[in-house]
């Protein structure tokens, strides 16, 4: 009896790949630096029909490595992670041969972040206050190839566009409008690789927090946020 009980318990905790064999199974990756949120996401997503959580990571670098080793369909990624941020991870993931869809799940999901998500190639951006069911719906939508990015208001789009060098402004407009990348590449006659590089360069000018900082630069990144405190203005140390 006792051993049976234990086994049953273990069985409920372990994933059971046997039942996941159907082709519709959605393999998920969760990336968040807060333990409670990771756990909440894992429990919620794991109990959905046809979803299986294949990986749970606490930082962007680990997640990028995991996704290379394992097939992932959808990654649910927090924007602010220790070290490199969610958009950095998004760009890495979208470069994989069979790229996962990325949902940016952030406490500060606003228009600005949405614009950056569009450039980074994320499929959706969701506020952390959404209901669990909305998150699950979003996962199902992006799997079907839909894009769930809020429309960026015109004044904000104009302001962001002005930050970019002139030759990038058209590309930015196309990315913002949600035109598929293959089509953009064909229209502008460039390779997918070149498109990715240019999008990365753009993000450096657009992002609220530059995502290039590596994990060891975390204090430096914090400093950059503290730019609000009066201090002699540094010459944008992270732009280099």
């Amino acid at each position, binding site marked *: 009896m006792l051993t049976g009980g234990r086994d049953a318990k273990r069985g409920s905790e372990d994933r059971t790949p046997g039942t996941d064999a159907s082709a519709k199974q959605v393999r998920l990756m969760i990336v968040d630096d*807060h333990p409670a949120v990771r756990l909440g996401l894992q429990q919620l997503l794991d109990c959905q029909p046809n979803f299986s959580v294949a990986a749970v990571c606490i930082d962007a670098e680990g997640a990028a490595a995991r996704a290379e080793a394992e097939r992932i369909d959808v990654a649910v990624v927090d924007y602010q992670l220790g070290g490199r941020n969610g958009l950095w991870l998004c760009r890495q993931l979208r470069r994989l041969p069979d790229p996962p869809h990325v949902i940016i799940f952030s406490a500060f999901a606003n228009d*600005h972040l949405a614009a950056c998500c569009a450039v980074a190639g994320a499929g959706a951006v969701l506020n952390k*206050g959404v209901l669990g069911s909305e998150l699950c719906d979003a996962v199902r939508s992006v799997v079907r190839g839909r894009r769930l990015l809020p429309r960026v208001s015109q004044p904000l789009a104009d*302001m962001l566009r002005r930050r970019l060098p002139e030759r990038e402004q058209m590309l930015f407009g196309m990315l913002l409008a949600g035109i598929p990348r293959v089509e953009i590449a064909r229209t502008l006659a460039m390779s997918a690789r070149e498109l990715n590089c240019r999008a990365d360069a753009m993000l450096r000018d657009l992002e609220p927090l530059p995502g290039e900082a590596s994990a060891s630069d975390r204090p430096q990144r914090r400093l950059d*946020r503290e730019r609000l405190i*009066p201090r002699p203005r540094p010459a944008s140390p992270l732009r280099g």
Partner: protein
Amino acid sequence: MSSSADEAPRRRAGRGRYRPLLQRVVAANAALLVAACLLTVLVLAPRKFSTVAVDEAIVLLVALALVALINVFLVHRFVAPLQKLNALARRVDLASPGQRIPDARPISEAGELAATFNDMLARLEREQREVSRRVLAAHESERLRVAQELHDEVGQTLTAVLLQLSRAQERLPRELSGELREAQAAARASLEDVRRIATDLRPETLNDLGLASALAALSDGFGRRAGVRVERQIATPIPALGSEAELAVYRIAQEALTNVARHAGSDSAELTVSSDPDLLTLTIRDHGRGLPNRGAADGNGVRGMRERAGLIGAKLTIEPPLHGAGTELRLELPLDGARCSG
């Protein structure tokens, strides 16, 4: 004894019990002159006394007048800077900097004293500015810390709670789901509160998108939360001010709008930013009950605004508007100065 002697001149607003220097000098010199004349007459020509008396008297009077004149001239030159110093020292207030003794040149001891006094005022003001700057920077970094903590801890935990409630909802029997939905709504509302408070504490938009966007977001927020409809006119692009000046302008606008919501009793306000090549002007005007008639001392809010304005070399006025009721706050920031201090 000594303390009452110190207080006496202050209490009597400059009319202490002493005789002014000028009076004393003139009296002493006159006495000397009279004594000298008398001595001359009595000792050297006692017998001629009666005949020369009239002539002597005239000479004496003329000499007395001359002495008084010369004394007045010399002593006045000496005393005037002292009087100005006295007057300024009585009313000087570091909260409104830039007050100095006019034409204090070190051409006499008193002039030197006045010039030194001016230097001392300049030094005190510099030190005061430094102290304010440090206090404000400490405030800002504390706000940043609290905001980060709110977001990183409370916000994340609430997110986790929401996720767990969502999961529970799918598993619980129907009759419980209504209650669960209420719990969910409460958790969402507090998450929204946490976000709002964190944003108030740390204006992310200012850093990310610049002053114009941050002021727009701020006034929209007041419309939504405080029920004050803020009509805004922001002449974009606002020239680059430097992060210190931008933060100061933002915080002043924030406090001004808070005051409108709190004291004005008006449901509409106007926020205007205009700039020409060398001056940026921010005005926030409401149509409420106006400032209290008199005697209302500046609170922390107004004092903080003045301090911030002073630090970036801007002029701040809070007055009734030229036309109509209400209050108008006006901040004028000279753009060259801002660039130097930013």
